[in-house]
């Protein structure tokens, strides 16, 4: 046995298990408390969406833009620029990933609406947000690889941008439907 592992097991094993059990209970309780937080504002989801310059992100991951830079710059300079662009794109992907989480939370809350149309839209928003989150996480991984090894060629995350657009559309539909319902009631 490794000396480090031996040292751990030389401690009272029951104390380790009890410590782990307490940690699990604390973690679960904190999740439960967070789930019972106050109401979720539609304005917050909107402002998050507006805060992201998606055009800048699109430009950073545009394959044509990359080809243009490759043709204009010396190889060393190009790799340096590519690395910087990948780091910048990574920040955008992280922001998109966060937005996806908020969309998902919003969509799931909207699923509980008494209005069947709003509930259905909420379901779509939530499902779309999960897909967007998965794409954002995959894109983050890919961009990290590119930032570390800029000579590698990996596919552009266009589908993430498309998903973002689709989510905006769903949220806009939700907002309009909600306003229409409020006006008629």
């Amino acid at each position, binding site marked *: 046995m490794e000396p480090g592992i031996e040292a751990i097991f030389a401690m009272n094993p*029951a104390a380790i298990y009890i410590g782990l059990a307490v940690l699990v209970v604390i973690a679960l309780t904190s999740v439960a408390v967070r789930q019972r937080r106050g109401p979720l504002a539609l304005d917050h989801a909107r402002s998050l969406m507006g805060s992201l310059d998606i055009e800048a992100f699109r430009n950073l991951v545009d394959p044509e833009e990359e080809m243009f830079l490759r043709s204009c710059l010396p190889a060393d300079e190009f790799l340096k620029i590519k690395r910087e662009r990948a780091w910048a794109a990574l920040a955008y992907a992280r922001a998109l990933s966060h937005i996806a989480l908020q969309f998902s*939370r919003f969509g799931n809350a909207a699923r509980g609406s008494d209005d069947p149309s709003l509930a259905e839209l909420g379901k779509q928003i939530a499902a779309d947000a999960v897909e967007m989150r998965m794409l954002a996480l995959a894109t983050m991984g890919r961009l990290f690889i590119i930032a570390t090894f800029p000579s590698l060629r990996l596919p552009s995350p266009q589908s993430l941008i498309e998903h973002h657009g689709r989510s905006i559309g769903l949220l806009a539909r939700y907002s309009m439907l909600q306003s229409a319902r409020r006006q008629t009631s």
Partner: protein
Amino acid sequence: MIHWYNLVLLYLWIAPHLLLTWVAFLLLKRRLHVKYPVFFGYVCYEIIEFVLLFLVSQRNLNLGAYYAHIYLGTLAISTALRFGVIQEIFDNIFREQKQSETVARVSLRWTTLFLVTLAILCSVFSSGHTSSTLIAGTAWVERGVAIIQCGLVLFLFLFSGLLGLSLQSYAFGMAFGFGVLSSVELANWAMHTEDLSVSAAKVLNLLPTGGYHVAVVVWLGYLIIPARIRIQHSERPMAEVKEWNLALKRFLL
């Protein structure tokens, strides 16, 4: 002292099962037994198990000699059912998420494999204080099972949180209750593998039933008052929505 101890022990044994009948009733009333059949089965099984063990423990029936064997037999079924409930919650979360279902299934498989390996390693590397009684042997197995169940519940929360999947309120309550239950069981069985004094063993007897009581209260609480996130409706005028729609059109063009 002994009088109070016995009262607390008896309360912690009986009360959770009475509350469980309420849980079963609510599951039936809200037709949740259709959506969560394994959990409903588990709740019913726990009630029947309690009645059986309670009857066996009565001195006037002279069945005390069989108690340990019946207890261990029912414990094995109960443990298997708990795995079934965790799987059921998992299936319910990912049923509507076809895209993430494959990733989730593969991750669950690998996590289970990792946890089983961890449980085996824990048993192998901390096998210093063994005793050859049936209960001591069970404690080793149950500690491993508690490690796996604790890990699976944590994985469930972490993975759904990572993907932004919402655990619907009832499923969340179930998973939360099982998380508490398996954590307490982990601590309890870990201590059972140690040499304990009589007084420590007595206090320890209160731990699993106490933890079980908390878990049942959590299940009941989530069935009575489900946690719902409310949406704060926007007071902004329609003009802003139109402006927003224009932004979307610009984006699409």
